[in-house]
């Protein structure tokens, strides 16, 4: 700061003081930790449910294909906000679903994860399916022609290629999921966006607060995109 304009130096000191005050008065790290927890739990859940849906949609049983397609088309076209609000007002308030917790905070957190899983799994399913669709039919036909069994065709030829081309679409779904965790603010889960709203209502530092919250999300999403994009490019099958 020495040598700079004195007004600027004191401005910096002031801004630093404000940021430290925020860290004391508001649980910024805790809020972002909730965001991360929401994202990780929902990612695991939607990967499992989405894989099952994808298996249903690419399988040979027409009824499973039909139900899988219907699920994806219905869920993809409902706003996530409607789903999450429904888990709270519909499932919890009206039908009394508590997901095994007596505390309202824990219940809301679990309901938000449930909503995020139900929604995101539709996109995971489509990402996996798009990976399978990039494998040319000729690959499987050639594998069958040299006498590989069904299991061998899948495990040696089709799925290795499909997984490689699913990395980038799945990474996009993950990034969208991290950003979508903010929707949990609609049912009062204490994550970053809700904290931002609370801070803006109480403090007169709109730009600074927004910059801090925005930076938090940039730190969460950009490296995820860069790393997974790099991995995706590295493992991609060149055709």
């Amino acid at each position: 700061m020495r040598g700079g304009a004195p007004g600027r130096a004191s401005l910096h000191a002031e801004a630093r003081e404000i940021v430290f005050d925020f860290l004391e008065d508001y649980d910024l790290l805790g809020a972002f930790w909730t965001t991360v927890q929401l994202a990780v739990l929902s990612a695991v859940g939607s990967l499992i449910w989405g894989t099952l849906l994808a298996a249903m949609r690419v399988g040979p049983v027409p009824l499973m294909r039909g139900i899988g397609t219907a699920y994806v088309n219905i869920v993809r076209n409902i706003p996530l906000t409607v789903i999450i609000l429904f888990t709270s007002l519909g499932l919890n308030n009206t039908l009394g679903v508590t997901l095994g917790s007596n505390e309202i905070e824990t219940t809301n957190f679990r309901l938000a994860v449930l909503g995020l899983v139900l929604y995101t799994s539709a996109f995971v399913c489509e990402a996996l399916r798009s990976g399978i669709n990039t494998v040319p039919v000729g690959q499987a036909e050639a594998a069958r022609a040299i006498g590989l069994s069904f299991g061998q065709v899948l495990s040696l030829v089709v799925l290795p290629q499909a997984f490689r081309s699913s990395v980038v679409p799945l990474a996009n779904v993950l990034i969208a999921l991290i950003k979508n965790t903010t929707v949990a603010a609609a049912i009062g889960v204490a994550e970053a966006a809700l904290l931002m709203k609370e801070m803006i209502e109480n403090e007169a530092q709109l730009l600074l607060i927004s910059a801090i919250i925005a930076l938090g999300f940039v730190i969460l999403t950009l490296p995820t995109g860069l790393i997974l994009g790099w991995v995706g490019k590295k493992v991609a099958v060149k055709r």
Partner: protein
Amino acid sequence: MSSVLYDAQGPRAKRRNVVLTVVFLAAVVAVVWWVISTLKDKGQLEWVQWEMFFTSTEPWSTYIWPGLENTLKAAALAMVIALPLGAVLGIARLSDHAWVRIPVSIVVEFFRAIPVLVLMIFGLALFAEYTNVSSDDRPLFAVVTGLVLYNASVLAEIVRSGILALPKGQSEAAMAIGLRKNQLMRLVLLPQAVTAMLPAIVSQLVVVLKDTALGGAVLTFPELLASANTMSGYYGANVIASFTVVAVLYIALNFALTSFASWLERRLRRGKKSTGAVLPANDNQPNAGAGAGPGI
């Protein structure tokens, strides 16, 4: 039926499919029965909870249509403002001048990395503190601002990949006949890229439409979801019925748009006049950008 995963089925596989179908059907029926009986136990299937949607126009004219109107208004405004902004940003990202390309890339990647809800909350406080927009209009302004900032960045990426998807020969030929950079973009690349981008733009409209619901849930913007909430309060907490009606409306609207996008995509791929470069309608495609993916 045969696919990359399995061959056309013989008699044994067909028998196995029948068994799988029966087992799966039993599971589905069990789930549906459980849902219905739970709803019945809580009295959610009684006619009194549902009748107003069929016997009177009041819920429609008082709650649903005004809400839907606001939803559509916010989505349309956001898209109309975001489209030209996104086109400018997308073209600027392809500029030969680093001093244009780099700042624009940073702006685009920044706004794509931030949740749209954060942008909306920021917009609401911004209009409250620095402008004299009346407090009734502020939610609409905030929702549109958030949607524009985010979707202009996403559309910028769509425009950029639409231009990059064109065959290289197009710009080479244009340069060979002596067109300037500006002519090349205006006369050769953009007209073709716009057609290539159409399906992706229509799909983005679905994302915009869905994101307006955030304004209703968090910013007190009276759109479809918020009015459904008020409505269910008015009719004695018929949450299940109200949400079902609203969800059906959203599904119908978005499904129509999605189907239109994929119809466009198929049609453009078939068309003889295009160069064959078409950006796919769904948003699960690998994108060329460095960081955050498209919104879902």
